[in-house]
C-alpha cells in the first residue's frame, strides 16, 4: 500500500503544476483494482482527496468525496464483472491518454 501512497503523492505534485486534476485519481483507481481489501483503498482515496484540496486550494473535502465515489464505482464494477475487471484498467488508461492528448 505504501507504493500507492507514494504514487498518489507524486501525482498530486504533478497535478499542482499543470491543469490535469485527473492524475491523483489514477493511484486510487489502480489501488481499487488491484487491492483485495477495500478499507485501505478508501483511506487512500480520502487522504489523497484532502491533500489535493490543500495543495490546489479547492474547498477541503470536495476531492475526497469525488475520489471515494470513484473508488466505490470501481469496487462495484469489480464485484459485478468478476475476473473480467482488468478490462477496466485498459479503459482507464485509454481514457487517460485521450484526456491527455485532448489537453495538448
Amino acid at each position: 500500500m505504501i507504493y500507492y501512497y507514494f504514487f498518489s503523492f507524486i501525482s498530486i505534485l504533478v497535478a499542482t503544476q499543470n491543469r490535469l486534476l485527473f492524475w491523483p485519481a489514477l493511484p486510487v483507481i489502480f489501488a481499487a483494482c488491484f487491492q483485495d481489501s477495500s478499507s485501505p483503498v478508501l483511506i487512500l482515496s480520502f487522504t489523497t482527496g484532502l491533500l489535493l484540496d490543500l495543495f490546489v486550494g479547492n474547498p477541503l473535502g470536495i476531492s475526497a468525496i469525488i475520489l471515494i465515489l470513484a473508488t466505490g464505482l470501481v469496487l462495484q464494477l469489480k464485484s459485478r464483472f468478476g475476473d473480467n475487471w482488468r478490462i477496466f484498467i485498459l479503459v482507464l488508461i485509454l481514457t487517460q491518454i485521450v484526456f491527455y492528448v485532448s489537453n495538448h
Partner: protein
Amino acid sequence: MTRPQIRSLGIYLVIAALILILDNFGYLNPVKSVVQLALIPVESVTHSISASLDDTFSFFTFWRSGESRIRNLEQRNLELLAQANKASALETENIILRQQLGVKDLVDRTVLPASVLGENRFLSLGVGSDHQVVVGLPVVYLDNYIGRVIKVTPRNSFIELPTDANAKISAKVGINGTVRGLISGQYNSSIVLDHVSQDENIRVGDAVFTEDNFLIGTIQKINSKDTDLFKQATVKPAVDPGRLVTVFVVLK
C-alpha cells in the same frame, strides 16, 4: 460490493462531507494554516523542478525554429534599443519638468514578493492573509499583469489568471489609450479583448494594459468582422506565469 464495504464507504463520505461543511464555515482555517505551512516548501521545490524541466525540454524543440527566431529577436532588439534611448531622453526631460513644477510621483506602489508554488486553474502563491494579502489585489511581474487574488488563506493565496474563463478585466489599448474593452479568458488557455467599439482602431501588435497600467499582452489577431457589433481580438499574454518563480502582489 458487500454490505460492510458499502457501510465503510458511506462513513468516509459522511466524514468528507462534514469536513467540507466545516471548511465552508471557516472552522478548519487554523488546521489548514498549519498544514499549508508544511506544504509550502514541498510545493516550492516541485515548482522549481517543473520550471527547470520545462526549460530543458524547450531546448530540444528550439532547434527547429531557433535560427529565424534569433534573427527576429536581434532585429527587435535593435528597434527597442533605439526606443529605449528616446525614452531615456524623455524621462530625463520629464524629471526636470516635474522638479520645476513641483509635481509628486504619480506611481507610488507597495509590492510584496511572493514565491509561486504551482499553476493549476489558479496560480498558488506562498503568501496569504498573514502577509496582508486580501482578495482583489493585482499580482504583477516587472509591471506585467499576472492576475488578481481570488482566494486567500493565512499562508497561501490563489491568483485568477486572465486566461481563466471567469476572468473579466477592464482594459485599454496603449498605456494612454482611449480605446477601452473587456478582457476575458477562454478555455483557460487564451485571452480575448472584447466589447471594443467598431469606431475604434486596434491593430495587431498593439499593447493592452489594465486600468492600473499593467501590461496584459499584445494583440495577436483581430477576430471580428466589420459587420459585428463590437471588435474582438486575441491577446497574447506578456508573460507565461507557469515559468515564474517569484511574482509581486501590489498591496496599494
